[in-house]
């Protein structure tokens, strides 16, 4: 039969695909927990910013530790339409690529994220 399964595909690199954006929803956490997560991202090389809505242009630093030397960014989106108990973490562009690289290196401590639900853009 002319059937195609995932076995017919290989790694992203072989298929000329690259990750452009990763985001994941987590259960709403307290401001203190958000600050602790931001510090964790800081150590991974990501500066953390907060936005009330995804569509907002303006962003605020989450804590004062954002480093000039960090090349990557993570956005905490505080309000997700119709989902009160959720906040969203977004890694756009090169930051998404870097975060995925860390996932592949098993360098992410997933237990720090309550109920993560991931979205992918290739």
């Amino acid at each position, binding site marked *: 039969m002319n*059937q195609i399964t995932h076995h017919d*595909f*290989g790694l992203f690199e072989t298929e*000329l695909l690259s990750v452009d954006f990763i985001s994941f929803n987590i259960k709403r956490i307290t401001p203190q927990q958000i600050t602790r997560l931001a510090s964790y991202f800081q150590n991974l090389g990501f500066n953390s910013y907060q936005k009330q809505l995804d569509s907002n242009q303006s962003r605020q630093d989450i804590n004062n530790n954002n480093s000039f030397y960090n090349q990557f960014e993570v956005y905490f989106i505080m309000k997700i339409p119709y989902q009160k108990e959720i906040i969203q973490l977004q890694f756009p562009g090169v930051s998404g690529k870097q975060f995925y690289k860390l996932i592949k290196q098993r360098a992410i401590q997933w237990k720090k994220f309550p109920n993560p*639900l*991931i979205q992918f853009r290739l």
Partner: protein
Amino acid sequence: MEEISKSTDPISTIDFINSCYIQFQELHSSKNLLSERNQKGLILKIGNRRSSKHYRIYTNQKNNLLRFEAEMKGDLIKDFQDLLITSSFEEYEFESKIAYQFFKYSFEIFSSLNQPSHIDWLATKIRPYQHRSALSLELAIHSHYLNQMDYKLLKEKQHLITLLRLLAYVKKLKYTTKRLTSEFRRYRFSLRDFLNYNNLTPNYYQVKKLKTFFDMVKNNFVIESFSDKHYRMLVTVPEVSVYKSEQNILMVEIWLAEELFDYLHPFLFSDVFQQKLNKHQFQVLFEIIKTYSSIHLRKEFNIAQFLENYPSVLSNQHKRQIQEYFTHYIKMLQQEGKLQDKVLDLSSNKVLQIIDLNSSHSQIAVFENIKVKFL
């Protein structure tokens, strides 16, 4: 996913986006469509951002690139989530599953497009899988991407078809294997049997012609017709000889790469060359197979030009006959499911059904139909 727009692409990246927008209104009428402009160029958004699948195509004015982007979330990738966050993350398993979803969705969006330039990356990936079940078919000839050049001599065309038929012929024969630089099969068969297979009378002229063919194969002359480098290596014949056996029978010994016999060729044709064809039928069929064996989904036939460049002088009656052959064989491909139902008449820029095609249409574009099922 990025695709570099090539100068051979018949339409620009911006025209591609505009054409997609117009056609998707009919093809994907239930999906949200939005065309926007940003600093870099145009964006076409397909589907609802909140649904599990969302697709975007971007142009980039600076480098004339197109970027194809799929966003996947929710139920679509929920099952893969565990693969991702587990400490035993398996890169291959995860990425092959996500890549599958990307190609499946891309195929769903683009496979019925009537202006399918710029999606060669998708067709090239998917095309060979439609012939997986047909590997062992004897009455079919497999082909690869062919250089879209002018074959000046009839001989060149005949040699190429003979090579394709030879690869089909040997499939039913016994062979021995030997490892040279890689694994090869050694076939021995009588020249007369292969002539019979080609429906040719085993007279002095045909024997001589076939011996010349095997000499050509030895010098890898025919192989230059294939545009794919890897395939050219595969189909290169390291050893071939024509000799007289002890019983005074002309025999052929040929070595062919083992890999050729389970290779997923992008194209498969029913073996129309097993019938006795007149030279015009052969020329038309060759032109159709050559044009079809190209990377683009859109196949253009300029029959008026074909007649003008014809190697011999043609009477009006022959010209009409050749045009009818084109119509006949194109309809045959459509009946075999290899072509979509629609034809673009390039002189009037009107779309018509293949069934309505006649010899008055001398410049047309037809569209390859890739038949696969994503499980």
